[in-house]
């Protein structure tokens, strides 16, 4: 088929079956499908797709190598600018990035760049006999300079990978007992299998990066201690670690979780598995408040844990849901119910203080608000109750306050995001850089990685200038 034909669809686990297991939903292209999809690429000279990639992957170059069946070569092209291709190939919202600019997308379907990226990365991992690029640093003198990275999430791993590739000595400090940050505690394994995540973290370590877990910067020691005790620069990629709640009566009843708590219990602590000690109550009816990607992850996780019914409760309409279309579709196919234009106003508890329902108001859409989406307005006298034994509030997050409140001289936004120079990633403190959700509030994995790339270049420039290295 190739040129001119439609985009190759992604094989998936059957919806009914997958809603009961934690295995990966998207199964990946076969070699034949990958080749066919690669053939669709017109290899435009102007490379419009690249402008949509926050980490500047040379997309036509890697797709061209795929056409020639040089999958390892393709993976190496990707890895030049992206240390985490198997992750990006799975969790990036490509429809808003590279694929959005694909010429084929104007009249038909864009090339499935993300799926090809995933195939190349997985192929290389499965056929790794000496085919990996080694990225031997050109400037061995840079090894004398040490960079501390706070957080081993997507931003931190990117900064660490980029700086290690050009020769710096990099140490990551991770607060939790496992690496990966939101990639591990936030993203469920049916979207990003743990073996893939472990492999990508190992790859960054193979570049010479040291990772210490259990270090809570801001508490175990401060950012300034890093600069005083031997590090030449610090990158803060501490993520968005403070869940937003609704602030309505009854929200602290038992059985009401933040999206983060729910996902952390299951993704990080594996509460759903018999041999793990962290508890989870077997839910009957789970209501998830919110309609972003995290909300979708919560619903689909709840189904897999064994909930009989899972409902999204969202105050706006379908068009306004912020989650990726693909994730909404996946949730719907797996049996999630959408209760739209519904706004919870109060939680109702039983005699033991556990949630047994919530009172909601029916909403209707009014004029567009500041976000450009139509503002939901309550319908007078429309109160009604939804029975449920578990509620997950997934409304997004604010940046974690630990570093902001313990770092003197660090300028932050009123809502807590760390202020940076957009071009270098540097904060108000010389030598201290930041990026990812700690700066923007909850966003995407790839935008955190893009910010990591900017900061890595900023750190490189800062150290070279300070020490007169050309």
């Amino acid at each position: 088929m190739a040129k001119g034909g439609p985009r190759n669809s992604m094989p998936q686990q059957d919806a009914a079956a997958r809603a009961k297991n934690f295995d990966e939903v998207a199964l990946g292209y076969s070699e034949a499908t990958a080749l066919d999809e690669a053939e669709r690429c017109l290899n435009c000279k102007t490379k419009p797709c690249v402008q949509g990639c926050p980490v500047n992957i040379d997309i036509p170059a890697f797709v061209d190598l795929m056409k020639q069946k040089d999958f390892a070569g393709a993976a190496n092209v990707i890895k030049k600018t992206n240390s985490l291709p198997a992750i990006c190939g799975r969790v990036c919202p490509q429809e808003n990035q590279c694929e959005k600019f694909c010429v084929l997308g104007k009249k038909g379907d864009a090339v499935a760049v993300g799926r090809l990226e995933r195939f190349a990365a997985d192929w290389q991992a499965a056929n790794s006999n000496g085919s990996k690029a080694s990225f031997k640093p050109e400037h061995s003198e840079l090894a004398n300079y040490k960079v501390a990275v706070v957080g081993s999430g997507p931003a931190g791993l990117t900064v660490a990978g980029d700086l290690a590739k050009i020769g710096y000595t990099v140490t990551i400090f991770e607060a939790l007992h496992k690496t990966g940050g939101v990639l591990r505690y936030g993203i469920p394994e049916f979207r990003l299998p743990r073996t893939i995540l472990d492999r990508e973290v190992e790859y960054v370590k193979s570049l010479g990066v040291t990772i210490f877990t259990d270090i809570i910067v801001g508490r175990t020691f401060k950012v300034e201690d890093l600069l005083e005790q031997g590090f030449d620069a610090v990158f803060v990629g501490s993520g968005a670690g403070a869940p937003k709640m609704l602030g309505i009566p009854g929200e602290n009843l038992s059985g009401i979780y933040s999206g983060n708590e729910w996902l952390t219990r299951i993704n990080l602590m594996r509460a759903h598995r018999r041999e793990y000690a962290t508890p989870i109550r077997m839910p009957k009816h789970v209501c998830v408040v919110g309609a972003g990607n995290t909300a979708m992850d919560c619903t689909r996780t709840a189904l897999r844990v064994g909930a009989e019914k899972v409902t999204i409760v969202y105050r706006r309409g379908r068009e306004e849901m912020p989650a990726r279309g693909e994730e909404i579709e996946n949730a719907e196919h797996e049996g999630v119910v959408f209760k739209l234009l519904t706004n919870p106003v109060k939680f109702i508890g039983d005699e033991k203080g556990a949630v047994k329902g919530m009172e909601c108001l029916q909403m209707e859409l009014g004029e567009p608000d500041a976000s450009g989406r139509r503002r939901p307005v309550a319908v007078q006298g429309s109160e009604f109750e939804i029975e449920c034994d578990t509620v997950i509030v997934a409304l997004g997050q604010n940046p974690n306050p630990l570093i902001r409140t313990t770092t003197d001289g660090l300028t932050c936004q009123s809502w807590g995001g760390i202020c940076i120079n957009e071009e270098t990633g540097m904060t108000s403190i010389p030598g201290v850089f930041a990026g990812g959700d700690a700066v923007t509030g909850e966003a995407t994995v790839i935008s955190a990685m893009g910010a990591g790339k900017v900061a890595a270049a900023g750190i490189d420039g800062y150290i070279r200038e300070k020490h007169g290295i050309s």
Partner: protein
Amino acid sequence: MSTHVDGSPCRLADLTPDSLRNTVVRKEKLSPVLTLLEINAPLIARSARAGQFVMVWSGEHSERIPLTLSDWNADKGTITIIFQEVGRGTMELGRFDIGQDIPSISGPLGHPTEIENYGTAVVIGGGVGTAIARPVALAMKNAGNHVITIIGAREKSLIILEDEMRAIADEQFITTDDGSYGRKGLVTDALKDIMDAQKVNIVVAIGPLPMMRFVAKTTEPYGVKTIVSLDPIMIDGTGMCGGCRVTVGGKTMFTCVDGPDFDAHQVDWDELKSRKAFYFDEEKAARESLTAGGAK
């Protein structure tokens, strides 16, 4: 671990994985159910202050549990925790021996107890809470307070650190529920007598939830500032999940980052009690499966 000659841990840029191993260096059974572990943790020991806690994880299948520090020694690079082996997490922790490494300890977390010269400070330790009360009493003493300590427990074998607390305190009282040691009765009986006899400026109470709640009830009519150290269910301990939500003065607080110390008169005790009890059945099953050999 690698240290400078003066005993302080090496520079952060020179850390090695070996220097951060949480090796148990001392283990004591203080009673059949109370265990003390002194653990190599140089970075935590350097930063620790009275009232702060650590998150502990004993291995792949374990829970993360918060434990407030009983002691720390920055020179030696060690921290000390004392815990009652009542749940699966603490039972697993109790299995570590001298020379073994605990897989994960992070901290120190939470705000330190607010220490200043209040005048007369009553520091109350209930059961294993006495282990946490001791550094608070010491810090209060060092700040110039007249320190009165009360140690309470169900029965004599659960009274710990009596000598250590007496060495700090200007006055010390001991109560047991069954009268097997000290005064028969509750810590609140002793507290009431103290407040009737003299002006008390602050009370700090650390122990089981019912004890802290009754201390709050006892001091309220006297208008004495009362601080309690809360220990709700936690997961990450860094403000990320909100599992430790507690209502204080009508506002939602995260115990891990806003506490763990709170104004006892403002705490919604009923809510805290029900949130703590939510996983009672699951926790019981996890505990029983540990003694039976593994799964929950």
